C-alpha cells in the first residue's frame, strides 16, 4: 500500500475530525484508518438517508404511473395515456446519464458535499411540485408538460446523487472496510423502494379507491411528504465536512480542470469507463431491475395477484434480503468484488425463467377453475353497474361494463372472475350490445398462506441476486478511477447501466410480450441476454484485485 499521501492539514478544509489538528503532516491513509466510528457512522448516515430519499422520490412516480396517466394525460385512450407515462418514466431514466455528467463534473470541480446537497434539493423540490401540478382537466396541456419537465429534473438530480454519495463514503473509508461502508449506500435504492411501497400502501389502505384517485386525492400525499424528508436530510448533510481526499486535492491545487475531457477523452481512463459499463454495471442494472421492479409488475399485472399481497410479497422480500447488501459488501473486502458480482449475474441467468414460471403456474386460474371452486358472491346486476372506460369511437361511444363473481377454493385461494360487456351508443341515440364476453379475466387473486410465503421466498432469492451484484459495486467503481475525476467517471457508467439497461427492462419486456404473446415469459430474455453478455465480459476482462490505495 502506498503511504505517500503526506499533506498539510487545515482546520477549515474538512479535517476537523483529524486527531491532533496541530500536526501539520499526516498520512491520509492513517487518518482514514484512525477515524472514529461515530464519525464514519455519521458520514454513512448523512449520505445514505439523502440517497434513500432521492430513490423514494424517483420511485413513487413510477409506482403511481396509472393514476398519474389518468390525471395528467388526455382522457379517451387509456393505453395512450399509460404509454405517455411510461415514456416519461423512460425519459426519467434516459436523462440520468446527463445528470451524471452535469453533477459529476461539478462534484469533481467544487467538491462532493455541495454537489450532492444540490441534487437532493433539486430532487425534493421537483417531487413536491409534481404533487402540486393541477390535472389535465384543470389546465390542459400545461399539466403533462409541467410533469414532464419536473420528471426530467428528477432524473437529472438522481444522475448526480449516487456517484456523490458513493464517492463521499468511499473517500472516508479505510482500505479494508471500503466495500463494507459503501454497501450501506447500496441499501438505499432498495430501502427507497421499500419506503415508497410502504407509503403508497399506507395512504391507499386508509381511504377509498375513489378518494385515492381523485384529482387532489391521496395519490398526491407521497409527493408532498417528500419535502419534509428532504428538509431533514439537507439539515443533516449541511453539518458534514467535505471528503478528506477531495480536500487534499484541492489544498494541493490538483483538482481536475476539465473532468469530462479527462474522463472520456483520455483513452486510458475511457477504456476503464467502457470496461466498468460492459463488464459490470450493465449486468448489475438488469439484475437489479428484474429482481425488484419486473418481479413486482409481473406479480401484479401478469399473475394478477391482489394489490395488498403483491406489494407485501415484495416488501417482505426486501426486508429479508436487505442485510445481504452489507454482507456482500463486507465479503467483497475479504475475497474481492468481481466474483460476487459475477455469481449474482450467473444465478439470475440460470434461475429467472424457472422462478417466474413458478409464479405463473401457481396462479393459473384454469387449474383453479377445474378444482370446483365455491362461488362466494356475484354482482351480476349491480346498481349502478361497474362502468369503467368510455371510449369515443367514430360513430359511437363504447362503454365497458364488468360483472364480477368471487370464488374460493378449499385451500384458501380466492379470486375474482370478471366478464366484460360492451355497449355502444351511436350518435342517433341507438344503443347496441356486443356479444357477451366468453373469455373472462381472473383478477384480485388471493394466495393462501403457504403459497404466499413460497412467493416471498422466491422474491427474496431474486433480491438476493440484486444484493450480490449491487452490494460491492460502489467500492468496485470507486477503485477504478482516480480521485480528481472519480465522481464523473463512475457516475456515467453507473447511470447508463442502471438507467438505460436496467430502466428499460419493463419497457422492452412490454414490447417483447406484445411481439410474442404466446410466451408470457418472453420479456425475461432481455435481462437474461444483457446479463449473459456482461458476465462473459466481466469474467474475462475484469480482475479481482482490490485497489488498496484510492487516495491517488
Amino acid at each position, binding site marked *: 500500500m502506498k503511504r505517500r499521501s503526506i499533506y498539510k492539514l487545515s482546520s477549515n478544509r474538512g479535517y476537523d475530525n483529524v486527531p491532533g489538528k496541530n500536526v501539520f503532516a499526516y498520512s491520509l491513509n492513517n487518518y482514514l484508518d484512525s477515524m472514529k466510528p461515530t464519525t464514519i457512522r455519521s458520514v454513512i448516515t448523512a449520505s445514505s438517508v439523502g440517497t434513500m430519499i432521492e430513490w423514494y422520490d424517483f420511485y413513487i412516480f413510477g409506482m403511481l404511473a396509472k393514476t398519474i396517466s389518468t390525471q395528467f394525460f388526455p382522457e379517451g385512450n387509456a393505453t395512450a395515456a399509460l*404509454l405517455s407515462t411510461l415514456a416519461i418514466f423512460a425519459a426519467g431514466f434516459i436523462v440520468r446519464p446527463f445528470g451524471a455528467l452535469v453533477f459529476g463534473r461539478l462534484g469533481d470541480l467544487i467538491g462532493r458535499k455541495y454537489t450532492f446537497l444540490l441534487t437532493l434539493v433539486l430532487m425534493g423540490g421537483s417531487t413536491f411540485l409534481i404533487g402540486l401540478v393541477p390535472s389535465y382537466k384543470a389546465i390542459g396541456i400545461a399539466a403533462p408538460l409541467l410533469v414532464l419537465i419536473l420528471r426530467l429534473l428528477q432524473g437529472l438530480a438522481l444522475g448526480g446523487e449516487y456517484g456523490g454519495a458513493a464517492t463521499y463514503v468511499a473517500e472516508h473509508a479505510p482500505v479494508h472496510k471500503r466495500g463494507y461502508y459503501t454497501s450501506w449506500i447500496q441499501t438505499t435504492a432498495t430501502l427507497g423502494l421499500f419506503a415508497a411501497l410502504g407509503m403508497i400502501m399506507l395512504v391507499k389502505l386508509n381511504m377509498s379507491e375513489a378518494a385515492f384517485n381523485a384529482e387532489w386525492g391521496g395519490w398526491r400525499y407521497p409527493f408532498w411528504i417528500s419535502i419534509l424528508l428532504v428538509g431533514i436530510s439537507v439539515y443533516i448533510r449541511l453539518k458534514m465536512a467535505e471528503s478528506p481526499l477531495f480536500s487534499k486535492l484541492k489544498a494541493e491545487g490538483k483538482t481536475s480542470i476539465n473532468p469530462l475531457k479527462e474522463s472520456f477523452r*483520455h483513452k486510458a481512463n475511457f*477504456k476503464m469507463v467502457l*470496461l466498468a459499463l460492459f463488464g459490470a454495471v450493465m449486468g448489475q442494472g438488469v439484475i437489479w431491475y428484474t429482481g425488484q421492479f419486473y418481479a413486482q409488475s409481473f406479480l401484479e399485472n401478469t399473475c394478477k395477484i391482489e394489490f395488498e399481497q403483491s406489494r407485501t410479497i415484495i416488501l417482505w422480500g426486501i426486508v429479508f434480503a436487505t442485510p445481504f447488501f452489507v454482507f456482500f459488501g463486507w465479503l467483497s473486502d475479504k475475497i474481492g468484488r468481481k466474483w460476487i458480482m459475477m455469481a449474482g449475474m450467473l444465478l439470475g441467468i440460470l434461475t429467472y425463467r424457472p422462478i417466474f414460471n413458478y409464479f405463473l403456474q401457481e396462479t393459473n386460474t384454469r387449474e383453479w377453475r377445474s378444482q370446483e371452486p365455491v362461488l362466494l358472491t356475484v354482482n351480476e346486476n349491480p346498481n349502478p353497474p361497474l362502468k369503467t372506460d368510455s371510449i369515443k369511437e367514430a360513430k359511437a361511444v363504447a362503454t365497458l361494463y364488468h360483472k364480477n363473481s368471487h370464488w374460493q377454493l378449499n385451500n384458501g385461494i380466492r379470486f375474482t372472475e370478471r366478464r366484460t360487456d360492451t355497449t355502444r351508443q351511436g350518435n342517433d341515440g341507438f344503443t347496441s350490445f356486443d356479444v357477451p364476453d366468453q373469455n373472462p379475466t381472473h383478477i384480485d387473486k388471493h394466495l393462501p398462506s403457504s403459497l404466499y410465503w413460497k412467493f416471498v421466498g422466491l422474491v427474496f432469492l431474486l433480491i438476493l441476486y440484486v444484493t450480490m451484484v449491487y452490494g460491492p459495486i460502489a467500492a468496485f467503481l470507486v477503485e477504478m478511477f482516480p480521485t480528481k475525476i472519480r465522481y464523473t467517471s463512475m457516475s456515467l457508467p453507473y447511470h447508463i447501466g442502471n438507467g438505460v439497461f436496467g430502466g*428499460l427492462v419493463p419497457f422492452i419486456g*412490454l414490447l417483447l410480450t*406484445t411481439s410474442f404473446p404466446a410466451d408470457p415469459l418472453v420479456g425475461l430474455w432481455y435481462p437474461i441476454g444483457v446479463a449473459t453478455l456482461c458476465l*462473459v465480459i466481466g469474467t474475462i476482462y475484469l480482475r479481482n484485485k482490490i485497489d488498496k490505495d484510492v487516495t*491517488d
Partner: protein
Amino acid sequence: MNVVKRYLGILWLVLAPAVIYFLVDRAIVHIDPAGIKDINNPVIWVIIITIFTPIAVGLMIFGWYAFRGEYDHLPESSKELDEF
C-alpha cells in the same frame, strides 16, 4: 487469456452493429401507423434506437480496444491512467 480477450474483441466489434441492425430491422417490420399495439408505435422505436446507438458505438470501441490488446494489462494505479 490475453489471446481470448483479443479474439473476443472481434465478437464485440461485430455484435454492436448487429444489435443496431436487428433493432432497425424489427422497427421496419413492426412500425405501422394504423396499428394499435405498442410495438407499432414509431415513437417507441425511435427512442430505443436513439438510446442504444451510442451505447453500441461504445461496445464497438470496447471491442476495438480489446482486439488491439488494450485490456491485456489493467492499470495498477491512477498514475497509469494519466498516461495517454
